[in-house]
């Protein structure tokens, strides 16, 4: 047995396909992006080495507007943690207590997660349509004509309007994770607390929340990194417009690559995004650890 299971060649052969795919598609590109980020390159002409100029230009050039795009992504992250997760947690707690029909409700709340973001985006485009969209139509029907807006075309409202579907779509996802965690709290804990006379709020605070802390950590990491790399919905809804009001790093990256032919700059943004995602994942992990300790 031992002999069979320690043959180096067999191990190598079993692990090779996965390793190769992993290195070629996931790992190597990170280094290649890093490498390209030092060049001025249009994708097919000659590469010109320009040192860290791309990085400098990225943060200083007004015509690229990277700080603003990054700011938008961070704002989205803050809103996700501040609005999306509390809503999800609230529902998860309400559902997790054991009410009639809780599974049914949970299943409904999860539907938006399953629908492709492109479709969610197309739907919301129609909801926001200034002339025929259901939102403005409803406002007009209620006599609130003053509140109608060109939601996605107005610099003042575009960012908010684009964020709403993003935040909405994944409430169900976080809710599901939290609900699963809450359901795994052993019933004896709850019962014991109830016998001691604890109220629902107290049970949630002192028993449920500490128990599902690992899940809260995962949800937070997903919400934050997901916000940093958000692309699909913004791309469909506004593609960064109007006037870059809704620009996020990913949409900026795509326009650098395929509109402005700046592969070097696109790679710079890509590389920074990875670094940011890793950094935030580490920081959030640290924060939760500190709280535990």
């Amino acid at each position, binding site marked *: 047995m031992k002999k069979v299971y320690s043959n180096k060649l067999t191990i190598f052969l079993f692990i090779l396909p996965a390793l190769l795919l992993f290195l070629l598609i996931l790992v*190597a590109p990170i*280094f*290649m992006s890093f490498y390209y980020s030092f060049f001025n390159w249009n994708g097919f002409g000659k590469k010109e080495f320009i040192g860290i100029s791309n990085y400098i230009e990225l943060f200083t050039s007004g*015509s690229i507007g990277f700080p603003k795009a990054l700011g938008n992504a961070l704002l989205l992250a803050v809103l996700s943690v501040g609005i999306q997760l509390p809503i999800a947690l609230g529902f998860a707690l309400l559902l997790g207590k054991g009410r009639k029909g809780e599974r049914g409700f949970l299943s409904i709340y999860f539907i938006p997660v399953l629908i492709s973001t492109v479709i969610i985006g197309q739907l919301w485009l129609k909801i926001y349509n200034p002339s025929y969209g259901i939102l403005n139509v409803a406002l007009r029907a209620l006599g609130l004509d003053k509140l109608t807006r060109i939601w996605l*075309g*107005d610099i003042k409202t575009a960012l908010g309007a684009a964020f709403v579907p993003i935040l909405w779509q994944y409430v169900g996802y976080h809710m599901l994770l939290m609900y699963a965690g809450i359901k795994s709290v052993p019933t004896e804990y709850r019962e014991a607390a109830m016998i001691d006379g604890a109220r629902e709020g107290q049970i949630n605070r002192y028993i449920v929340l500490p128990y599902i802390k690992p899940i809260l950590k995962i949800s937070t990491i997903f919400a934050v990194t997901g916000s940093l790399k958000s692309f699909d919905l913004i791309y469909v809804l506004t593609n960064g*417009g*109007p*006037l870059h009001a809704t620009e996020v790093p990913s949409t900026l990256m795509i326009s650098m690559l395929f509109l402005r032919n700046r592969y070097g700059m696109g790679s710079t943004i890509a590389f920074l995004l990875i670094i940011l995602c890793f950094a935030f994942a580490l920081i959030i992990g640290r924060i939760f650890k500190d709280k535990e300790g």
Partner: protein
Amino acid sequence: MKKVIALLLTVVMIVSSLVACGKDSGNNNGGNAGNTSGNTSGGSNSGSSETNSGGSNTSSDEKINLTMWCIATESDSNRHAYEAAIADLKAAHPEINFTWEATQNQEYKTKIKAAVAANEMPDIFFTWSCAFLGDFVDAGRVYCVDEVYKKYASELPEVMMGNVKYDGKYYGAPLTMNIVAMFTNLDLLKEVGYDQAPTTYEELIKCCDALVAKGIIPFGCSGKETWCVTEYLESIIEKTAGASVLNDIFAGKATWKNDDVAKGVEIFQEMIKKGYFDPEGMALSNDEVKANFIAGKYAFYMNGTWNCADFYNAGIADKIQVAEFPVIDSSKSKMGELIGGPSDTLAVAASSKNAEKAAEITFELARSICKYGYLDGNGLPAWTPNYDTSSINPLTQTVADIVAKSSQMVLFGDTAMSADKANIYLDYVSQIYASAIDGKQFVDGLAKDIQ
């Protein structure tokens, strides 16, 4: 940890060299395959086509394969022109095995760039002239057509070749050309007492004020697609600062810092402020705006003259007048200074196995696509027409008259500039439309970011 990083680095280096090898061997394979097929058929033909271009039909079993990529998808208004031209070509050249593929505009841009990067271009490809083609020429991927052009020079005036000329050499064959024109809905104008489009700027302003007072929106313009804003802005700047000034700025020969340009921008913004533009336009696509114009929501619509056929087919040609935007500063500009020019172009890949034959076919195709396109009303001919043009829709004929009287044309800014610069420019234009910056900030910003 260090060990891990070192290991990763080696792996990456191996991987990247593998990738490079893969690429090389891929190319070799491609080259070999090309050579073998070239030896049997292509080689002999490309030699013979020079001596007897008509005689190549002697060996019909040794067909020359030519592939073309273009943007004439089934929903494109140029589709019919391409189909007709290709049918003619196939009839005239049985020795050629011609295949073609159409991709939607936006996707095509990505696709052709990828093909250029991989050096896997089709023999003949559609391209936009000036900067778009220029990048490919710089990379050495486009076949120079100087020799072939000589044969067609009598039908294709040199002035039309200006946008495909790089370092004194020609790299493509233009198809149709278009200009920006002001389309006017005469029904709406009648409501405020005009029976034709205003011919002076003062009159235009009066007319717009009257329209606004009557609750009619004068202009429709898509803010979602910035090129639509440039159709307005460039015309206004040109009629304020003059065509030569704008041309020099686009070509990078003069600075953006120009008071007249700033003034033109402010005139445009003044018009927006006065409510001449549909505020919903900011969030609409051009298709939606155009549909609104056809439905009679706007009095004016400024856009490319390729729209003539669509308006004609929509059955509104009789109530539409097409005209030039009036002169704003008559000391700097005059009627006959237009925005537009030949942009749609066919070019030949340098990597084509039968580049010379392909170049000849390209010119023939360009000539007939131009002809059918013109007859369909999709634009004006870059090639001198030698056929009956009386059946062409009246709108396009009016445009032809306008162009015939023109003294100078400035090519669309986003075509004239390289991709990076063009997008910076478009950025500033969209800020103008949203009145986020004024004329001074526009010229200062562009002077700083582009030059």
